């Protein structure tokens, strides 16, 4: 699809009475992006999306589609497609009529409406259900109808507000893949809203993490996960083990950091983080970065902490441990593919090793 748009948000803000739902959002969403707004409930994602769709008027700032301001353009002229969390299928219309609605609104000839509608339905694998009412469909099927209805008008922009949140876990994963397939096939610029970090990571080309109305970090899924710029982001995306400490020694390409618990850790030196001796920082180690070895086993890892297994949870594909290290701090440790190893028992002493590259440094206080 060649009419996919680029979207720019400049200083966008919206207040509901005292509540600042969205504050100072500045972003560019590239043509063909699958862009996700990720954040906890109430952080303003829906409000942002509704401003882009034109349902809510921004109090301040500008929305540009391909460089043209659209603030004053009403929703029915914006040519964006939105998929609501509740699907918003019209109960008085059949599946066919639901999907054909937007085409009829554009006064296309009957034959074209027919052809495009059927094609859209087949794109979401719903052939043969044209005559049904929305109430006669399963949740997943309703979801597909909502998607087909939006895609059939070939909008310049696709907006999706937690479209998968009403589906069960299995279907959600299946729909995720289909969504990605369709989006990549059509090349349509898509803006997706979710509070599910896994969904955001698998679907998106780029992610904006939101908190309390602000965008706190923008980046590719890999950047967001591996290089969170604040504790907030690190905490929200994935599971984290935080240590706070200060730099005690500078080496050629590494820093040595003493944590509050008194553990010495080696951290990769990063050019964008100029940290001298004595500067405070927050360290984050993802649970899957650890390797576990028996306490007396020697390991060549650069970092090594000792601890006692406190809890363990067997999840099939992985085992989750909580290990108490010095200072009474508990760290979460994931061990993948546990079949090959024997499980650790609670109370057992272990030593955790991990590479300095797996320690994510976040400047303190930011």
């Amino acid at each position, binding site marked *: 699809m060649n009419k996919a748009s680029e979207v720019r948000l400049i200083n966008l803000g919206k207040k509901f009475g005292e509540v600042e739902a969205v504050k100072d959002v500045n972003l560019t969403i590239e043509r063909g992006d699958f862009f996700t707004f990720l954040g906890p409930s109430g952080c303003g994602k*829906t409000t942002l999306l*509704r401003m882009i*769709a*034109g*349902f809510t008027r921004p109090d301040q700032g500008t929305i540009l589609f391909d460089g043209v301001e659209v603030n004053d353009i*009403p*929703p*029915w*002229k914006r*040519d*964006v*497609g*939105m998929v*609501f*969390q*509740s*699907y*918003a299928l*019209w*109960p*008085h219309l059949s599946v066919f009529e639901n999907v054909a*609605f*937007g085409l009829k*609104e*554009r006064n296309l000839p009957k034959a074209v409406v027919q052809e495009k509608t059927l094609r859209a339905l087949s794109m979401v694998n719903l052939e043969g259900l044209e005559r049904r009412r929305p*109430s006669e469909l399963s949740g997943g099927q309703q979801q597909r109808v909502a998607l087909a*209805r*939006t895609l059939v*008008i070939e909008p310049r922009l696709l907006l999706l*507000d*937690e479209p998968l*949140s*009403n589906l069960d876990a299995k279907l959600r994963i299946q729909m995720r893949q289909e969504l990605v397939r369709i989006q990549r096939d059509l090349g349509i610029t898509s803006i997706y809203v979710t509070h599910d970090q896994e969904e955001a990571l698998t679907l998106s080309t780029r992610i904006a993490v939101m908190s309390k109305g602000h965008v706190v970090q923008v980046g590719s899924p890999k950047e967001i996960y591996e290089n969170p710029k604040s504790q907030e982001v690190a905490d929200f995306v994935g599971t984290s083990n935080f240590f706070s400490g200060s730099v005690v020694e500078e080496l050629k390409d590494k820093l040595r950091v003493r944590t509050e618990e008194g553990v010495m850790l080696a951290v990769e030196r990063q050019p964008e983080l100029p940290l001298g001796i004595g500067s405070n920082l927050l360290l984050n180690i993802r649970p899957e970065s650890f390797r576990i070895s028996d306490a007396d086993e020697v390991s060549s890892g650069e970092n090594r902490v000792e601890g006692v297994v406190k809890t363990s949870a067997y999840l099939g594909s992985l085992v989750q441990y909580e290990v108490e290290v010095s200072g009474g701090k508990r760290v979460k440790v994931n061990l993948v593919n546990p079949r090959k190893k024997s499980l650790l028992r609670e109370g057992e002493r272990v030593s955790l090793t991990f590479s300095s590259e797996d320690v994510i440094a976040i400047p303190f206080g930011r």
Partner: protein
Amino acid sequence: MLRNKLKEIDLSQSLIFLILLALLFTFILYPLIRVLYVAFTEADSLSLSHFINFFERALFKESFLNSLSAGLMAVIFGSLISLPLAFFTIKYDFKGRTLIQTLGILPLVMPPFVGAVALQLILGRSGVFNLLLLKWFGTSVPFMEGLRGVIIVQTLHYFPFIFLNASASLANVDPSLEEMAQNMGSHGLRLFRRVTLPLMMPGYVAGILLVFIRVIDDLGTPLMLNYTKMLAPQAYLRVTTIGVEDKAGYVICVIMVVLSLLSLWGAMKFLSLSEYAMVQRGGAGTPISKKIGGWRLVFVLVFCFFVLGVSLLPHLGIFVLSFAKVWSFSILPKSYTLNHYVEIFFRTPHFVKNTLLYCLLAAGIDVLLGSVIAFLLIRGKVFGKGLLDAIATMPLAIPGVVLATGYLRVFHGTNLPFFHQPLTSLWIILVIAYSARRLPYTLRSCYASIQQIHISLEEAALNLGANRRKTFFRITFPLMTGGLIAGGLLAFITSSVELASTIMLVPRMEYGPLSYGIYIYMQSAVGRGPGAALGVVAILLVATGTYLVNRVFAGGSGTAFKL
């Protein structure tokens, strides 16, 4: 299987059930059956000859068509008033919106036959409006003549039913369904036609069917306007002037019941349908009400206040009349007096007193029956609940004239054991008629409030050793008081302005209640003042009752008037 079922049946409940069934049968179903029987038999064998006769007689055919067209017109004009009102007050955000919503139900607090008198003063041949027209333009418009007058009165009185139902269903339309349509490129009238209207349709249709039922039922308005070529007045005249043996009266009754039943059936069907448009789960569901200003706001305000102003004219008219010494052939009364109130409170106080007595009794009976029936329907362990429900709901579709005719037919000839006179000679017959007519409303109200009570609350009590009867009176009953009070009030206010069954069943002048008093007074020119004063009392009674019902329901204005 069967044994298990039998085990679940509670004996004492079954006894109560049978007593209730007997009561409802005697006072609701049996009179109706007798009416049907008379209408469908000729010399004790089944026959349609009376119906054929009916449609062969020009007067009856005309009455039938008039009733239908009055219903249709009231619905059309009512919609023309109500749909814009509902749309403006739900979809637009402006100052005065709540006031309009409140004023919109006020027409209901005036009994329609009182409204008829008042409108004649204002729009009638020598009413204020025509006097002004004569003075300014030398011409007059016969608004209130014949069927036209009936239609105007009924439209102005009943349109709030459409307004309330249309508003409720409009407000219930999930806003995301409309936003989605906007997102697809639809807006304005097109969006209304393609999405909003179809979604609010079921609730709206239910509203118009209710209006239709009431128009068919309404005896007071045509009688007051002296226009008798409609079904209800024809039935009334046949039965009261020619006598209980006249077949034609029964045939008309059957036709009225059929029309009402069809409408009621339709209304229920549409109401259950209307739920599908309701707000779905999740999503941002803030109703779209647009702030408006400028010429749009002016247009909306002018429309609303014009319509409401006209519909509140009768209230004003009756109020002025009740204080007027003489008011004829003049734009406003020449002098004012309190004598009419002295008359009704001191010389003929029985009208007001009787109303209070009968309607309180009827309300009490309805609350008792309603709560017990509702309890049995929801929690009871007995066979045949459906039957009980059906008979108790039936009065919704039995016009007052029909019920009264049935009572006359069944109870007129036979003396009661201890009273040595027939039931129809005792004032208690009015209480019974009111109770029967209003039972469906009270039952609904009780039903709703019992349904809200979670069964575990009762089970907890049973578990603590209270028996079933104790549980009902100590747990269930107190919890449902709100619904009971509302149901009782509803029965009270609607009974206090019931005219159709009243004028047919009042055994003697001094047993007459308020509505009867108004009717009698309004027959003569000198009686119009006191009649109007009684009308004001009726309005105040209904207004207070309505206000209280809404307080109890706490469901916003007008909850009580939705089916």
